[in-house]
């Protein structure tokens, strides 16, 4: 296997001077689906926020390499343009900005940053419609304001829609399964699975095992108290389902 697409080495990060990530080591190869599981407070959301580049997280040590680049040195929009996508646990409502405009603006901003030509409105619409159909989403989604008044499930599906439109090389799904009923979970999982290909890596961050029944991971990593406590294959997720996180909790 060549160099992993994502390599995290000894990553330490603090929030409000409290160390939350205490030396994370993890690598994910292109084509791989990696699941990061862990109990509440283990550092899952801090990890995803640090990877996305949100303010308020101080990296005190370690590094994150993505496709040979120093990910942590990049602005959030640079990370996006170079192919990193974050599906947020809590997608933001933006009243007044129409979903179609937003998605096309994002797509073309990324393309411009990569010196690619802009996608015109007609081609965009064609692709958007096909993607919506695949995700069993109404075309009305395009005309609505970004996430405004969306149900929890609609917000998550909108994240998957954006991911499908933006075609990232590394997608991080932060608790995408939370708040979804079984039908929505199935649709979201179908959308995620459709993204799997040998060029792309997916990192699925979750508390529960149930999304992994649909999106079968190649590797499973248990995050506990700011470190990867154990790594394994799909069997590890099933084991956690039986035993819970008790073994990984601080005594």
């Amino acid at each position: 296997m060549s160099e992993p697409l994502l390599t995290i080495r000894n990553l330490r990060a603090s929030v409000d001077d409290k160390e939350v990530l205490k030396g994370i080591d993890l690598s994910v190869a292109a084509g791989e689906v990696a699941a990061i599981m862990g109990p509440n407070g283990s550092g899952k959301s801090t990890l995803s926020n640090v990877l996305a580049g949100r303010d308020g997280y101080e990296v005190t040590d370690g590094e994150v390499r993505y496709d040979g680049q120093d990910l942590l040195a990049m602005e959030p929009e640079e990370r996006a343009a170079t192919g990193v996508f974050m599906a947020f646990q809590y997608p933001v409502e933006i009243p007044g900005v129409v979903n179609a405009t937003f998605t096309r603006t994002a797509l073309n901003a990324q393309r411009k940053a990569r010196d690619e030509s802009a996608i015109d409105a007609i081609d965009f619409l064609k692709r958007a419609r096909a993607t919506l159909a695949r995700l069993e989403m109404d075309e009305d989604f395009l005309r609505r304001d970004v996430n405004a008044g969306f149900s929890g499930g609609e917000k998550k599906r909108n994240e998957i829609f954006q991911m499908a439109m933006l075609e990232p090389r590394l997608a991080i799904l932060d608790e995408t399964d939370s708040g979804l009923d079984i039908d929505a979970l199935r649709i979201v999982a179908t959308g995620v699975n459709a993204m799997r290909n040998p060029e792309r890596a997916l990192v699925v961050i979750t508390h529960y095992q149930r999304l992994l029944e649909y999106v079968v991971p190649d590797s499973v990593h248990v995050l506990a108290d700011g470190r990867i406590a154990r790594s394994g294959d799909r069997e590890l997720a099933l084991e956690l389902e039986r035993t819970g996180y008790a073994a990984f909790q601080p005594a």
Partner: protein
Amino acid sequence: MTDAWLAGQRTAFAACRDTLPGSGTPWVDALRAEAFRQFEEDGPPTARIEEWRSGPTAALTGQVFAPAAPDGARAAAVPAPYLEGPRHRLVFVDGRFSRGHSDAGEPPKGVRLTTLGALLAENPQATRDLIGDPDAFSEERLSRVTDRRPQALVALNTALASDGAVLLIEDDVALAHPLEVVHVTRKTEEPRAHHLRTLIALGAGARAHVVEIHAGGSAGVWTNHVTDIAVGAGARLEHVRADAGSATAVHVNVAHARLRASAAYAGFVLAATNGAVRAETRLALEEPGADGEVNGVCLAKGTGHIDALTRLDHHAREGTSRQLWRGIFADTARGAFQGRIRVLPDASGTNAALDNRNLLLNAGARAESKPELEILTDDVACSHASATGELDTDALFYLRSRGLSEQLARALLMEAFTGAVADRIAHEGVREFIRRLVDERLHALGSATS
């Protein structure tokens, strides 16, 4: 400074009163003299007057502006028409009609489209009925609204008005295409004032869309613009006022409208400046079932100062009114919004709403919001909301995480913030023009900051 400022206005009035439109017509001379006396009695606006508490009084009285003399040369850079598609266009340069730049087109039968100067020259009596009664002068007559608080600048405007657009529409006649009125002021060596008076009167059931555009002045120019409006029973006027230039001057813009039964006035104000703007809108919903809408977008940067004031008086039953205002202030700019809804004892069944929100882009920017409800009867539904804050950091991060640059993300959020206001403009061509103008101004604002 106030004494010198008043003395300057006296000198100016003495110097130009004989050259103003209607001069030599006894009632006009008497009206102007009486108006000037009223102005002297009221004195220039100061922060001690409640309605001017947040007003640009320092910018206004900090220098003595002399009225611009009539100028035959009239060489001016006049912008191309703003509205696409068919329209009527009147252009005023330095406060006086410029025939060469105008294109009044052919208004339909029953529509009189002219200027204050022409109307006074041709039929002083008709104008008298529109403007006021010199024998029983009162500020109420002057502004043609039942609003008696001191309005010195309206009085000064009546004394010194050099010209303005006049639109008179007979009953049941619609002006199909919008009227575009453009005011251009030229660069000046010494401080100059331009006093403009627009008259709009719609008969019962008439329809019109009017856009008044100030194409921008230069430092040292004060425009004092008053628009008198009468909307007849069941008539509908859409009235848009906009600053389309980089005004570094002082701009005072006052609209007074009287609404008869089931009349509708839909107003929109765009104030965008790094200078000083005072925008007033006073509506009197005088008869049952009238509908007033006054919306605005205020954008200021640098040391800009925008003071927006609305007064909506519901006099009669079953009236409705809506106000939607959005302000964005950058650098050390200041914004103030005073919005009053007054429901008088006879106005049961009134439904009135006011919503003002402001965004501050920098720590040095400030915004004040002062909604006032004065309700003198039961059986009304009135609501008001106001909030001032910064751009939503979560939304900014969300947009950036999708690849939008910080600048683009900010611009998109600011567009969303103001877009809902511009969307309320009914005439499609006017709405598109205003949206473009707002976007342009937002870009200027975005590049001024961060």
